[in-house]
């Protein structure tokens, strides 16, 4: 499946990576070669094989419904770039 410049720009937008045209062109070249390598998968017949999401295929253990986490806002916000009145600040979100 050939990759196009627009595909790279689309992925970059979905992933919110700011790329200029040169960078996108550079990644297009790399990703094209990686995808060509990945495309070997298409040569394998996997009809009827169930996808494996997880190597152990077991069920998960659940936690009891208990409040165990205290308020650590101050500590957590010490590594935040912009906070005010306990809120994380971002450029205005337009609805």
């Amino acid at each position, binding site marked *: 499946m050939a990759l196009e410049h627009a595909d790279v720009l*689309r992925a970059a937008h979905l992933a919110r990576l700011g790329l200029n045209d040169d960078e996108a062109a550079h990644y297009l070249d790399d990703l094209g070669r990686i995808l060509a390598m990945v495309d070997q998968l298409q040569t394998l017949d996997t009809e009827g094989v169930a996808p494996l999401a997880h190597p152990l295929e077991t069920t998960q253990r659940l936690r009891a*419904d208990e409040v165990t986490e205290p308020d650590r806002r101050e500590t957590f916000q010490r590594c935040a770039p912009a906070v005010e009145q306990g809120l*994380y*600040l971002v450029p205005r*979100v337009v609805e």
Partner: protein
Amino acid sequence: MQWETVIGLEVHVQLATRSKIFSGASTAFGAEPNSQACAVDLGMPGVLPVLNEAAVAMAVQFGLGIHAEIPEVSVFDRKNYFYPDLPKGYQTSQMYHPIVGPGEVEITLDDGSIKAIRVHHAHLEEDAGKSLHEDFHGMTGIDLNRAGTPLLEIVSEPDMRSAKEAAAYLKAIHSIVTYLGISDGNMAEGSMRCDVNVSVRPKGQEAFGTRAEIKNVNSFRFVERAIAFEVERQVELLEDGGEVVQETRLFDPERDETRSMRTKEQANDYRYFPCPDLLPVMLDQAYVDHLRDNLPELPADKRARFQKALGLSAYDAGVLSASREMAEFFEQVKDVCGDAKQAANWVQGELAGALNREGLPIQNSPVSAPQLGELVARVIDDTINGKAAKQVFQALWNGEGGSADEVIEAKGLKQVTDTGAIEAMIDQVIADSPAQVAQYRDAEPDKRGKMIGYFVGQVMKASRGTANPQQVNGLLKEKLDALC
């Protein structure tokens, strides 16, 4: 042209767990911003989700409550998109293998008939945080307290045909989740929110029209109004030769209209894939059976029982089973007084009227169910008459006296049924009313029935309302007729 409306609902119900779906942070409403957002809720580096057992149990209870299939395996997926209220850059949800399979919710239509609305599935997911748009020097503030609150998203089939049906369905869901105690159902605090899919088609046409999705409608009333507006908009559009665009719209309750949300510059692509941090949830039969065995009686079953076993009308049964609190109140009154029909009349009549006037929910009623039950019992056993009963009710409502019997005693409202005492009062009234007696005697016999009312009133007045009105009536008739 005749148009038919087609509606499907996606209802988001916040589950009443103590802690979040994937973390041990509290879900309590109204805390200081970000004080209930722990490292997991904040999506800090390296932290991992661990699924809350109660959220799973509640989802399964809901499934059982709508007689849904409960699949053995359900899987969490990631829905990937960037938004400031979504700290990890993905929402953990269930796209392909939801925890609750197809089920059914019954609603009662205006004519009293019952319609089944199919539920496509219900899945577990985490709620997002909130953006606060007050002025922070032109910035938006993000509060992540709500992030990670467990949601059950209940997705209906497009089975509803009117705004009323949609509202009835939403009420039915509300009553099921509150009956089960899996949500507080508080729409004002956002515990229940819904997205409404609306389309119209020419009556008789099988294919669906293009639908619009109205986001985040958060009251029963708004659901009806939003649909009403949207249907009108779509019909007008189509009748003018236009086309409905598939889009997301917002309902503005102030202007009573829906309007298009600005379409994002590029359509979103959520890139769902199974969450690698969460293994599949497997529910064994014994666990599901255990939850089934411990399920409370649900509205539909309760309604049927009220009708069949208690002999209530379909209407009464529907009203009294609509909420868990109402049903519990009614059943207590019934148990104390021993008469379901009388209990139903009092709960829906005097009590409901008083509650409405004061805008109180039944759980805050100043008259308790045992109090009302005793009051009704006293009416049934003729201790008091209907008029006195209203006085007793008012007294209890005002907090004068701990029980109906106390009030009856204190106010001397006990009905007088002693024939001798009543006869004495009648004789006195007759003696005091020679003019009226003369009129009565001169009247045509078929007019006399109406005239007796005056004498009854006088006797009741003399008894301070405690005489048994039927008895008074009978005795008076005998005595007056004897004079003719």
